[in-house]
Structures are given as structure tokens and as C-alpha cells.
């Protein structure tokens, strides 16, 4: 078993060429659990911890988007200034593990593992993120919806590194909420992200831990758009919010497992989506 500690993206890509099938590791918070419990057989590892190119982010002024390096730790997303640009991502970041985990974990790891319960993934889906992949000879951009394929399955090729995501800076409410068996240090039993694009006139909802991969509730979104004007400010009645939650929950396909039951997960999604939409409705109208 070889461990390559890459110090640049180029080195990491060359290491992937020289060690076909090597596992990429960023923070290690997923991979090392597998290793510690003998759930994986490690051959070669390419560590990205020292690749500084992956730990940077910047605003792209022309498109009003944020180019967020795949190795930026969750701890940085919680803090200013990133938290102001991407409030739903900041909220999701705050729910990831403990401070120790958030100092190590990153969106690159979340995307690479592609667990249906990954806390960053519903935010990327609701924001229609673009995922940037790089190999030695090519780079390609994939929509997040094309990238996530199933339980721990994604569209990354073995010779590619997930280098960054691009996310829009939007006007309007953004919220992320999840339920689990306790309030902190918990893997989601169900999670939801609601984003209101007040200029574009859309409300976008993505759900985590209730299907093989993150679910975008496009039918519920279209239904809401047909019921009310989604250009700011929102005027959503409690009845409309409840029906929206119910319709969003109808689009997921949860299972019974060690963390929760399908019935509870569906119920929780309806409550979370209703609650987040009501928060979006109140956003800017009263003190937060």
C-alpha cells in the first residue's frame, strides 16, 4: 500500500495515473471510519490534505457565483464571509458532526462519498450546483443532478479529482434543517433544503436521507409556482405551506433502516419543508 501526499493538483492527478484505483482522501472523516472498522481494503491512497488549490474559494463577479474549492472545510463555510453568501450551506455545515469533524470535512468528501445523508448535498441540489472535475488531460463540469447517481455512487471517473463546485449567490431566504435521534453530532434521518430565488421567482427544495440519493421535488416546486407569485416578497398561507410540505414528501422514497423508519422520514420531510417555507415567507418581514 502506497500513500501519496500530493502538494498540488497536478501531483494528485499524476499519482492517480501512476496508482490506478487509488482512493482519494481529503479530510479522512469517512474513509478512516471504514479503515478503522475493517470495512474496506485499502490499496493505494492519494491524500489531498496539502493541495492548497482545493482549499480556496472566490466570487465570480460576472456570473454572481461562488467558486468553492472541494477541500474547503465545513468550519470555513460556517464563518463570515462565506456564510453570508451561502446561508443554506452555512446552516448545513453547522449540523455536520462536531467542531473536530467540521475542521476536516469538506464538500469534496461529501460528493466523493455521495451518501444519501451527506449534509452538504441537498444544498448543492437546491442551488443547482455545478461540479468541476479534473483529470490529467481534461476538465469537465457536471450538474449536481448528473453527478449524484445513487447510494455512494457518483459520476467521478477513477482518474478524476473533484476540484470545486460553483454555486449562485441569490437574493431571498435559504434554509436547511434536519432531524436525527439527537440535536448534535448526528447523521440525518431526514433533511431538507429550501431556497427562495426572489429574482428568478422560484422556490427550490432538495431532500436528503430519504432516497438512494438527494431528491429534488420538481413537481411540488412547479405546483407552488402555479399557486402563488414567487417573486419577492412571498405570500404563502399556512394551508399552502402545509400542502407544499405534503407534496414534497410524496416525492421521496424513504426506507426503514437502523436510523429511522420510512413512515417517520416521510412525515418529518413534510414538517421540515412546511416549516422552512413558512420561514421563507416570514423572511425580511419580521426580525429573524
Amino acid at each position, binding site marked *: 500500500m502506497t500513500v501519496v*501526499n500530493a502538494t498540488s493538483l497536478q501531483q494528485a492527478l499524476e499519482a492517480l495515473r501512476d496508482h490506478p484505483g487509488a482512493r482519494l*482522501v481529503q479530510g479522512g*472523516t469517512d474513509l*478512516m471510519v471504514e479503515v478503522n472498522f475493517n470495512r474496506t481494503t485499502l490499496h493505494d*491512497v492519494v491524500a489531498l490534505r496539502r493541495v492548497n488549490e482545493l482549499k480556496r474559494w472566490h466570487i465570480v463577479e460576472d456570473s454572481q457565483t461562488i467558486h468553492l474549492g472541494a477541500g474547503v472545510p465545513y468550519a470555513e463555510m460556517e464563518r463570515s464571509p462565506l456564510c453570508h453568501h451561502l446561508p443554506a450551506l452555512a446552516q448545513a455545515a453547522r449540523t455536520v458532526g462536531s467542531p473536530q*469533524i467540521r475542521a476536516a470535512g469538506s464538500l469534496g468528501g461529501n460528493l466523493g462519498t455521495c451518501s444519501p445523508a451527506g449534509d452538504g448535498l441537498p444544498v448543492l441540489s437546491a442551488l443547482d450546483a455545478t461540479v468541476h472535475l479534473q483529470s490529467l488531460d481534461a476538465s469537465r463540469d457536471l450538474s449536481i443532478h448528473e453527478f449524484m447517481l445513487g447510494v455512494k455512487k457518483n459520476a467521478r471517473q477513477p482518474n478524476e479529482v473533484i476540484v470545486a463546485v460553483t454555486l449562485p449567490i441569490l437574493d431571498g431566504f435559504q434554509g436547511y434543517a434536519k432531524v436525527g435521534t439527537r440535536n448534535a453530532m448526528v447523521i440525518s434521518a431526514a433533511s431538507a433544503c429550501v431556497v427562495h430565488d426572489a429574482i428568478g421567482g422560484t422556490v427550490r427544495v432538495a431532500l436528503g436521507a430519504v432516497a438512494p440519493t438527494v431528491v429534488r421535488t420538481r413537481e411540488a416546486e412547479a405546483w407552488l409556482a402555479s399557486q402563488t407569485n414567487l417573486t419577492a416578497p412571498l405570500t404563502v398561507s399556512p394551508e399552502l405551506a402545509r400542502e407544499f410540505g405534503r407534496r414534497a414528501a410524496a416525492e421521496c422514497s424513504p426506507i426503514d433502516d437502523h436510523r429511522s423508519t420510512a413512515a417517520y422520514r416521510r412525515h418529518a420531510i413534510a414538517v421540515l419543508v412546511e416549516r422552512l417555507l413558512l420561514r421563507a415567507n416570514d423572511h425580511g418581514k419580521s426580525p429573524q
Partner: protein
Amino acid sequence: MYRLTVNGIDHEVKDAWAGESLLYVLRERLGLPGTKGACEQGECGSCTVVMDGEAVCSCLVMAATAVDADITTVEGLSLDGEPTDVQQSFVEAGGVQCGFCTPGLIVAVHHLLDRNPNPDELAIKEAISGNICRCTGYGRIFAAVELARDQRRAMQAK
């Protein structure tokens, strides 16, 4: 073979499997058993060390990827063998019962106070939310952190 810098000292790690966690290497190969291991999945915080300025779970760091990192364990907090102010506060406030979680908490609290000398109750709770204690009910741990904070503040005021 690879090298690790722990508490300012350069160590050679020889004949080790490359997939070993930093926790395992610290305890079993470098003779630094102050860092405790319990859950080995990042839930309990008893293995907390500071790596390049961040408090992390050493059980989730592949040791062979930590070359060139600056690692501080609980053994590295007091270089003269005397308890640090935080350790003394834990003793005085009764923040130690069985003691298993204590090294991880001590590292986490040093990390907190070094970055934020004036944490309020919420900041303290947030900072040690990744460190689980099954004995104390946390009340005396919070009191210990507040004691260390207040003593540092008093020292600064002098």
C-alpha cells in the same frame, strides 16, 4: 517509513502499515498514550489533537498523510511537567471523574481559549460539543472552562 512532528519533536515511524490512524501511531508506535481512543469514528472526541492549528479527531487522520503537519497532543501542552492552567482548573472545579474523556477535553479547551480568550457559555458548549463525557453531566466541565477563562482574564488585567 515516514516522519511525524509531534509536540515539536521529529519522530520516525518505521515498519508501520500505511493505513494506521494517527491515534494508533501516537499511542502504539510513538509511546504517547495520553491521547485516548474510544469510538474510532469521530463521535466521542477523546482522541482530539491539534493539527496545523485545528482541533481534529486523531482517529480519523491517516497518520501517513500527516507528514509535515504540526501536531500537538495533550502531552505537549505542558512542557515543564506541571499541570497547565486548564488542567489545574479541571482538578479544582471537579471536572474529572473517570478521566477517560479528560485529555481530549483539555486539548479542545486549550484550542478554544487560545483562539477565543473570552468565550461565553454558548461558545464553550459549541467548542466542546464534540467531546463526550459519560460521568460528569458536563456541569463541572463547564465550570472548569469558565474558571480557566476567568483566571486567564485576571492574569491579563494585571
